[in-house]
Every structure is written in structure tokens, then in C-alpha cells.
């Protein structure tokens, strides 16, 4: 029984590792990701090349940043449907201030951040104060932001698209930090991928190693119980909405700097993709369970399917269908693995 393993808890030493792996919420997503990778790698040699990997990690990265934030929010028991449009709002604020009013990129980014955080605060306070479902509250902000994005953009620029961020002072440095590429193994990787890894690492650390992480699981699991043991539930939820808003600002800024122009309809329809990635990654729609790494892997699955279909040369008319099949299969795999794990645990 006694082994020399330096494990902290020797009682679960030999089978404990397998068990510990199996009960991780992200395990299903890992298996799904391996399956999707194997499938497309067998279809296209470009897909499995380092060049191809750099290619499909790009959509995974911006989606992943959002999915991780949404995962935290969902573990905390809430939804945010306004997150997709908020990426557009942040990007539009940046584009408008720089190209219409000649601002430096950096203060424009700060204003964008302040705006996003204010909207996150609004969502959070509304949900906590009114006790209405966040689905409804954020659906309202989703529609309002959609209108604001179009209305303000047209009123200010007379067009539905703002371009010219690249001419603003401070652009080059901002671009290097948020929208450049980094050479790695002879291939250019988007810097957004590193942002995504950083966001995932911070979120995971916070979720598993800090008091705030415990609070998030507690408010999502049982809010009343959490409150009665002294968890600041309102503050936790508001902070989660603001975290989501921060992520939306980050993604909106990355895309605006990369494309040097922003369209008024940016981000519409993305909100569900974020939720899907989080669910593939092991989050429950009911809250209290999930993982940040899982959501990041969910985004990888989505990125692989998104670009893999192109690499495999399938008819683009069927693109959405294939995407849907991939997502169902990945979620099913996830579900089966988790059920197997729960049987093992029992």
C-alpha cells in the first residue's frame, strides 16, 4: 500500500490518478477534441501541419477568450447573451474615437474598456437587483446594444462601417501587443492565441486556487446556501458579468486592431457560440459545475471544425450542417465520457 510517491494524499495513489482525471469536467472535451483532430487530420495533410494548426487556432483563440469568461459566468449560474454584440460595441468605440475624432489608440481603448465594464456592471446589477433571469436581462441588453451600435455608428459616420484605425497615433504599439503575429516553429502564430492561453490560465487559477473561485462555484450551485454561509453572492455575480464584459472588450479590441475597421453588426450571433463552447467544455446550463480549461478546449473543437471543413474541401453550402454535426458529436462524446466517469466514481 505504501509507496514512495510524493503525492500529497497517498490513500488515492495508484488508481487515484485515473479517478482524478475522470472526474475532471473537461475530460469529455479533451476526448472530443482528440476525436475531431484525428478525424480532420486524416482528411487533410494541411490540417495537421504546423501551418494548418496556426490557422485553426486563430478562430479558437478569440472564441476561447470569450468562452472562458462565459464559462465562469455559467458556473456562477448566469448567462450573458449580450457578450457577442459587446465585442462590436467595444470595437466600434475604439474605431470611432480614433478615426472620427483623431484620438490616440490607447485612450480610445481605455474608453472602450470603461464602456464595456459599465455595460457589464449594468447587466450584473440588473440581474442581482431584479432577480429576473439573466437570460431575459441580457437579451434586452443584446437588443439595445445592437440598436446602439448601428444607430450611433450611422449618426456619427453616415456609414455602417468605420475604418482607418491604422492611421491613428499609437496604433503600431497596440497592434504589436494585441493583433500581431509571433513566429514559432517557422510559422506565424496570432498573438491572440497567447492572450487566450493567458486568460485561460488566470481563470483556471482563480477558479481552483482562490476564494473567489469557491464563491463562483457556490453561487452557481446553491445561491441561498452560499449566502447563508457568508458568500457575497451579489458582488460575485456582478464581478462575473464585468469579467465577461472585460473579455468582450479584449476580443473586440483585438479584432478591431487586426482588421483596422469595424462593422456595426460585429458580433451578432456569436453569443450562442460562446455558450456552446462552454457547454462542450463541460459547463452545465444549470450552473455550479464546469471548467475554464474545458471551455478553452471547447473553443479548440469549434476552431478545428470551423476550418477543418474548409481544409477537407467539403461543399460550403453544407458548412453549417457539418458544423452542427461536429458539435453534436463532440457534446455527445463529452456526455458519454462524463457518464462513464460518474459510473466509475460511484
Amino acid at each position, binding site marked *: 500500500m505504501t509507496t514512495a510517491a510524493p503525492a500529497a494524499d497517498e490513500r488515492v495513489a495508484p488508481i487515484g490518478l485515473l479517478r482524478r482525471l475522470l472526474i475532471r469536467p473537461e475530460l469529455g472535451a479533451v476526448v472530443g477534441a482528440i476525436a475531431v483532430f484525428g478525424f480532420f487530420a486524416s482528411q487533410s495533410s494541411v490540417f495537421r501541419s504546423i501551418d494548418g494548426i496556426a490557422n485553426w487556432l486563430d478562430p479558437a483563440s478569440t472564441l476561447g477568450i470569450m468562452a472562458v469568461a462565459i464559462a465562469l459566468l455559467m458556473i456562477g449560474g448566469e448567462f450573458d447573451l449580450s457578450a457577442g454584440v459587446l465585442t462590436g460595441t467595444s470595437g466600434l468605440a475604439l474605431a470611432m474615437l480614433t478615426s472620427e475624432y483623431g484620438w490616440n489608440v490607447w485612450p480610445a481603448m481605455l474608453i472602450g474598456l470603461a464602456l464595456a465594464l459599465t455595460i457589464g456592471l449594468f447587466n450584473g446589477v440588473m440581474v442581482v437587483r431584479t432577480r429576473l433571469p439573466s437570460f431575459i436581462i441580457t437579451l434586452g441588453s443584446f437588443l439595445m446594444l445592437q440598436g446602439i451600435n448601428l444607430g450611433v455608428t450611422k449618426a456619427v459616420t453616415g456609414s455602417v462601417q468605420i475604418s482607418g484605425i491604422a492611421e491613428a497615433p499609437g496604433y503600431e504599439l497596440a497592434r504589436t501587443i494585441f493583433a500581431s503575429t509571433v513566429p514559432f516553429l517557422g510559422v506565424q502564430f496570432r498573438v491572440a492565441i497567447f492572450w487566450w492561453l493567458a486568460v485561460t490560465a488566470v481563470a483556471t487559477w482563480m477558479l481552483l486556487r482562490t476564494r473567489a473561485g469557491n464563491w463562483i462555484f457556490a453561487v452557481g450551485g446553491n445561491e441561498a446556501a452560499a449566502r447563508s454561509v457568508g458568500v457575497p453572492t451579489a458582488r460575485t455575480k456582478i464581478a462575473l458579468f464585468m469579467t465577461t464584459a472585460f473579455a468582450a472588450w479584449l476580443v473586440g479590441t483585438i479584432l478591431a486592431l*487586426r482588421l483596422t475597421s469595424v462593422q456595426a453588426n460585429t458580433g451578432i450571433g456569436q453569443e450562442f457560440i460562446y455558450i456552446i463552447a462552454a457547454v462542450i467544455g463541460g459547463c452545465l446550463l444549470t450552473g455550479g459545475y464546469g471548467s475554464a480549461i474545458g471551455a478553452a478546449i471547447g473553443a479548440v473543437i469549434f476552431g478545428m471544425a470551423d476550418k477543418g471543413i474548409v481544409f477537407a474541401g467539403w461543399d460550403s*453550402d453544407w458548412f453549417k450542417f457539418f458544423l452542427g454535426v461536429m458539435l453534436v458529436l463532440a457534446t455527445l462524446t463529452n456526455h458519454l465520457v462524463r457518464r462513464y466517469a460518474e459510473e466509475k466514481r460511484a
Partner: protein
Amino acid sequence: MIFRKLSTTPIPPYRRLFAALLVVPLVLTGCGGEDQDDSSGGEPASDLSFAVVSHGGAGDKFWDVVKSGAEQAGEDLGVKVSYQGSGDPNQQSQLIDTAVSEKVDGIVVSMANPDALKEAIGKAVAAGIPVITINSGAERSKEFGALTHVGQTERIAGEAAGERLKAEGGGKALCVIHEAGNVGLEDRCAGAKAKFGELENLQVNVSDLADASSKIKAKLQSDTSIDAVLTLNNGVAIAARDAIRDASSKAKLATFDLDKDVLAAVKAGEISFAVDQQPYLQGYLPISFLLLYNTNANSVGGGQPVLTGPGFVDKSNADAVAEYAEKGTR
């Protein structure tokens, strides 16, 4: 016996669903693993492959004709053509990146938002992949290093339409813009105004054609001196036709872009003429240009865009065109 064993083992329903879902895409795509082998069909004349990346979403009628053109060119010329489209500029630029990493022999791209595609197209050009721009973005095409642009210059098309409307005896015209902030549409109306003279713009929303129709009707009723209407979209053309009828106006109607309904209305004399930018050519021509560039170092256009329009469809040729509209190539 194995058979009996199999048949008596109940298959869990989820597993059956699983298998079915896996099989469907494979069947639809002729079983996927089609990297090299072309078991049926004609031998390809070359192993060249071209990618078309448009800003049209799946199911868009206009872009479907472009896609048919590109695919037919691929078949006729024995080259591999893949078509992808996304209205989201970020996704469109990623699709260009994808084509670059696949090391295709040429890329055809439409530039509704040139700034957003600048970097991706630059990468393709830097990688030595010839790029041809189509449809929109003519003015930036050369700057981005494209071989040429294939499309219709909106201003010139607008001028042609204005000239013809004037020749048919219009005195005061209405130009119906159906998408707010679309620069191409503004150009068409400006071109028409330059040749026509007295022309007023009216803003409607293409996604609410009933409302568009009532707006046009209200305009015709409030200003009875309007005797010509120019619409810039096939759906809006039909809405305008109804509006003219409902307002008992005598205004002549002309439109941009075709479909079956527009052709029927042209034949019935309700629409005087339709300006056709021939989207099929915007798919077909760039593929043949890219083939010639790859095999014979030819380039087309001499630094000027290759115009696919404006072509006119009126009573005289509506029947001939209708046949092809039915097939989805006009």
C-alpha cells in the same frame, strides 16, 4: 454465430444516432478521403487548385450564381475550385489565410470591406499566390497587389441606367436605396443622377419589402411628377412594381439585378429594363484568368478592371435570359 450475436445485441439508441450522424456527412461528400483520387469524372487537365472567398453568406441568391460560375469554370477547365463565403470580415480573412496555408495556385476574393482583408490578401501576395478581386473593392484592388479586378463599376453602371431611363422619356426619377450605408448603392444612384438630371434618393430596408413598397407608394402619391423609378435590387423591384400599380402612377421602372420575378415583369412590360452585372462571369472569368496566369503567364485588364456589366435585359432578350435564370446561371 456472429450474425445472430450482433442482431440480438440491442444497440443503445444514442449509439445508433452517433453512427447515423457520422455517416451523413461522409455520404454527402462522397466519403471524404478524396485528397488525390478522382475515381470518376473527367481527368483533370492539371493539378491546379483555386480558392474563391466571397463576402456572401451561404444561400445568398447573387453569390450562388457566382459560385455556380466558378465551379463550372473549374469543371470546364479541369482545375479544382473551392468556394467559401462569409459576411463577417474576420472570418473572410481567416478563409483567405486557410487558402494560403493550403498553398492554392490562385485566390479569388470579393472585397466589401477592403481594410479588413488587406493583411490577409497581403500575405497571399507575399506567398506568391496570384489574387484576383471580384465584385467590390475595384478601387483598392491594384494597391493590394491583385492581378486584376472583375466586376461592375457601380458608378458606370448607374450612369448607363440613368442614360437609358432618360432616353425612355423620364423627367423626374426616384432612386431607391435598400441598404443604409452601402457605398456601392450610393454610387449607382449618383451615376444615374449624373446622366438623368432630376433624381431623388429614397431610403428603404431590403429586409422589409412590404414596408419598402408602401414607402415607394407614399412617395409616388405625394409627388406625382415622378415618372421614373430606379431600384437597385430584384426584390425591391417587385415591391416598386406593386407600389406603382397601387398608386396608379405612370412611372417607368428599371432595376439592377435579375431573378425570375423580375424577368417575368420585364416580359409583361411592367419593368422597362434590368441592369445585369452578370455574377456568373464574376465566378467564371477569374478562374480562367488564374489558369492562364499559371500556365501561360497571361494577365488581363492592363491595370484596369474587367467589367462584367452593365448588361441590359429588356423585352428583346428576356426570353433567352429566362432560360438560364431557371438553371441558376443568370
